[in-house]
């Protein structure tokens, strides 16, 4: 096993992580359903499938503890499924515990650590769910039967049936509503789409099945809408335009069967197989490692460099009087194509904000229990997307804000009641893409608002006059706004961390709106994409620069004594050094930057880069270190210069240039002062 394990592990980890995310979401949905005592067979099945797949995958790499936990959770869910999709409220907590235990073990695997065994108590609790549920899965949906003509019945999936039966068991009526489309109706704006919409307002639409066959109006198509409802027949019929629409019940409650037959092996098997078949949950979705995308981007960068070489060669031809008009046109076309290609590659890195926030409901649930406050989380994120690297950085900031809102902003139920507010506080997270390439996220609560006077008092300054100043104060490192007497968490607000992420790391904006007694809204605007590169940071002539590690072949010490100076310009000009039997030109960075006035000799360190396939050494003064930097491209035409890839913030408040050394060498390192 160990031979294949290493190859399989990265794929395993991504897949299991994704499944765990979805399992958490499903389980929370089940908790809500359990509290409302309603059935949700689909959710139970989804959760079952997620766990079943986790079990299968984990068995492949032989992680027994995960297999066991998943197995017992699966078993509990199988009974819930047979009970028409009902999970007793008491089962939720052990199952969440199970998911957490799986997560923990997955993290251990990811970190290359040995996987701990199953916590003994957990398995007991999960196993007891099994027996408990077997116990009161007594009178499930079995006395109810569906009556459907074979043409319709054959198109119903098992889960559709479950949903219908569960609905009936919950006291609603299962009906079949026939809608007959016609040209006249379409003219009145009544099509299957509008019908769907109108019916959905009155009923839960389980399935729409087209049935071929002559209709009263002379057509040959009927849509059978299978639905669960408590609405009046007349209202439903009206929604589909009246006759020739028909309505009939499709479920009847059979005289009580004394004992429900135990599930047969065959039934269990069918569920099992459904789980195994794990059809692509989102068809047409491909999982790709980020590093492969980066690889593609890097190749694209090589193309861009090549193009600029080509452009220079063409410029030389043009200057020499060659007919280059067509060539120039092709070049322009080529530039556009490269831009488009870059855009599509960047697009591949976008993830849905909704997926990023998948864990927040779980976080809020935990906070709700820990704080004893009642909180409802509302997510309104639509289908906005963000670059993966932005999303990864953004999440901790959002977690901070959500935690703060529950811990500090929202009041306890009794305080809220006294203030005339509903006991349940609302925490809302909404986001919208802005045209400027930025995403705006708002985290709002309807809590007590920020007490500006208290913040000022703690910071020992006058009360801020504007919300910007207030935010500034709150973002001072280590400042807590909680009066120490009632501090329970004992931690600061961590707003400095939020600001560091949003403003410094992501180059975004952070603002605040707060009204005492009414609530607080934090508004975050972040760029949709950022590029993060591993870079060397260095100094030359008292200025700091960064250069992507990927562009540097080697860093060498310059031994001034053994430099060979060619005839011609001796000072600051190009020298030669010997490297592995090859003569390598050495040029001072300042000379490439046209800032070599007053410079006597090249610096003691040099980056060796490749330029047109040949090595070139660029001398600098001092290497300061290696770190990840956020590359901000320079978009303004004033500062788009060859050799400068962008700027970054190293935390000193001044932008630091990120150099593209090969391009810089190519643009200016050419003999006789270059063609800048």
């Amino acid at each position, binding site marked *: 096993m160990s031979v294949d394990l290493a190859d399989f592990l990265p794929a395993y980890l991504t897949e299991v992580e994704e499944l765990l995310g979805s399992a958490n979401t499903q389980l929370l949905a089940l908790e809500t359903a359990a509290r409302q005592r309603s059935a949700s067979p689909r959710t139970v099945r989804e959760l079952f499938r997620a766990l079943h797949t986790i079990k299968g995958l984990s068995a492949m790499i032989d992680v027994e503890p995960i297999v066991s936990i998943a197995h017992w959770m699966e078993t509990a869910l199988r009974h819930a499924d047979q009970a028409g999709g009902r999970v007793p409220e008491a089962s939720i907590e052990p199952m969440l515990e199970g998911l957490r235990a799986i997560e923990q073990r997955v993290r251990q695997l990811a970190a290359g650590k040995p996987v701990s065994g199953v916590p003994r108590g957990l398995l007991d609790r999960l196993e007891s769910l099994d027996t408990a549920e077997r116990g009161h899965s007594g009178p499930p949906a079995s006395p109810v039967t569906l009556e459907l003509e074979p043409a319709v019945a054959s198109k119903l999936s098992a889960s559709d049936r479950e949903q219908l039966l569960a609905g009936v068991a919950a006291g609603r009526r299962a009906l079949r509503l026939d809608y007959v489309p016609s040209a006249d109706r379409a003219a009145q704006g009544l099509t299957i789409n509008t019908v769907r919409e109108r019916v959905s307002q009155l009923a839960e639409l389980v399935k729409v099945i087209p049935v071929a066959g002559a209709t009263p109006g002379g057509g040959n198509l009927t849509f059978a809408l299978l639905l669960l409802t408590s609405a009046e027949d007349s209202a439903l019929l009206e929604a589909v335009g009246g006759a020739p629409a028909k309505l009939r019940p499709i479920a009847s409650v059979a005289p009580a069967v004394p004992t429900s037959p135990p599930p047969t092996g065959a039934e269990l098997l069918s569920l099992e197989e459904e789980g195994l078949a794990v059809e692509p949950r989102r068809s047409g979705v491909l999982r790709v490692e980020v590093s492969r995308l980066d690889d593609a981007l890097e190749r694209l960068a090589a193309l861009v460099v090549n193009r600029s070489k080509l452009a220079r060669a063409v410029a030389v031809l043009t200057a020499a009087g060659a007919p280059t008009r067509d060539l120039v046109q092709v070049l322009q076309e080529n530039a556009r194509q490269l831009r488009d290609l870059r855009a599509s590659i960047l697009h591949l890195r976008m993830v849905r904000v909704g997926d990023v926030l998948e864990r927040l409901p779980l976080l809020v649930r935990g906070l709700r229990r820990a704080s004893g406050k009642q909180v409802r989380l509302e997510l309104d994120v639509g289908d906005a997307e963000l670059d993966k690297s932005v999303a990864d950085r953004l999440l901790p900031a959002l977690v901070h804000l959500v935690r703060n809102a529950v811990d500090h902003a929202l009041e306890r139920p009794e305080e809220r009641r006294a203030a005339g507010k509903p006991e349940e506080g609302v925490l809302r997270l909404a986001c919208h893409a802005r045209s400027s390439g930025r995403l705006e996220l708002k985290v709002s609560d309807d809590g007590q608002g920020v007490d500006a006077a208290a913040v000022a008092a703690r910071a020992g300054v006058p009360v801020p006059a504007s919300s910007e100043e207030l935010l500034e104060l709150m973002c001072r490192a280590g400042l807590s706004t909680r009066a120490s007497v009632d501090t329970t968490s004992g931690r600061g607000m961590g707003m400095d961390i939020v600001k560091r992420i949003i403003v410094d790391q992501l180059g975004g904006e952070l603002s605040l709106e707060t009204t005492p007694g009414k609530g607080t809204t934090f508004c975050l605007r972040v760029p949709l994409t950022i590029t993060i590169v591993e870079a060397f940071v260095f100094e030359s002539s008292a200025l700091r620069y960064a250069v992507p590690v990927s562009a540097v072949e080697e860093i060498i010490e310059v031994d001034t004594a053994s430099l060979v100076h060619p005839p011609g310009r001796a000072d600051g000009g190009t020298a030669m050094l010997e490297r592995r039997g090859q003569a390598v030109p050495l040029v001072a960075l300042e000379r490439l*930057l046209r800032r070599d006035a007053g410079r006597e000799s090249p610096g003691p360190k040099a980056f060796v880069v490749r330029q047109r396939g040949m090595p070139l050494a660029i001398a600098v003064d001092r290497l300061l270190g290696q770190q990840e930097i956020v590359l901000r491209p320079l978009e303004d*035409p004033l*500062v788009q210069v060859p050799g400068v890839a962008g700027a970054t913030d190293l935390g000193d*408040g*001044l932008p630091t240039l990120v150099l593209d050394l090969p391009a810089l060498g190519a643009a200016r390192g050419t003999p006789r002062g270059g063609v800048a």
Partner: protein
Amino acid sequence: MSTLHVVFKVAGAEYAIPASEVLQMESFTGATPVPGAPAHVAGLVQVRGRVVPVVDARARFGLPPVERTLDTRVVVGQLGSRTVGLVVDSAREVLKLAPDQLQAPPQLVAEQAQGFVKAVARVGSRLVMLIDFPRVIGEEKAHGD
């Protein structure tokens, strides 16, 4: 309709720009030079986490450079999707200018000012030049690729 204008000084002369085009004013603590950028570009500064190029008004107007002082300001302007700063000697005043205070610059002035001056405003006994911000900032590329 009189509109608000931000007034700034460069080499003793007063200039104005509609306040609606000004994003904010920042004190100037130096810019990161960008090699190869046009001569009037002082470099890059960071404004609220954004990297913004700044244009040196003195260099742009063909005036000799001076030492930066505590009064030196960056007037950060918004030009459509571009955000660009202008380094000026000082900027302290906001004025309301009515259309009847404005007149076209005399032709000789307009020629010499390379179109940077859109109009001249009379404010009491002072003359304030309304600048054409987009033109002052310029779109010159560093490199004719």
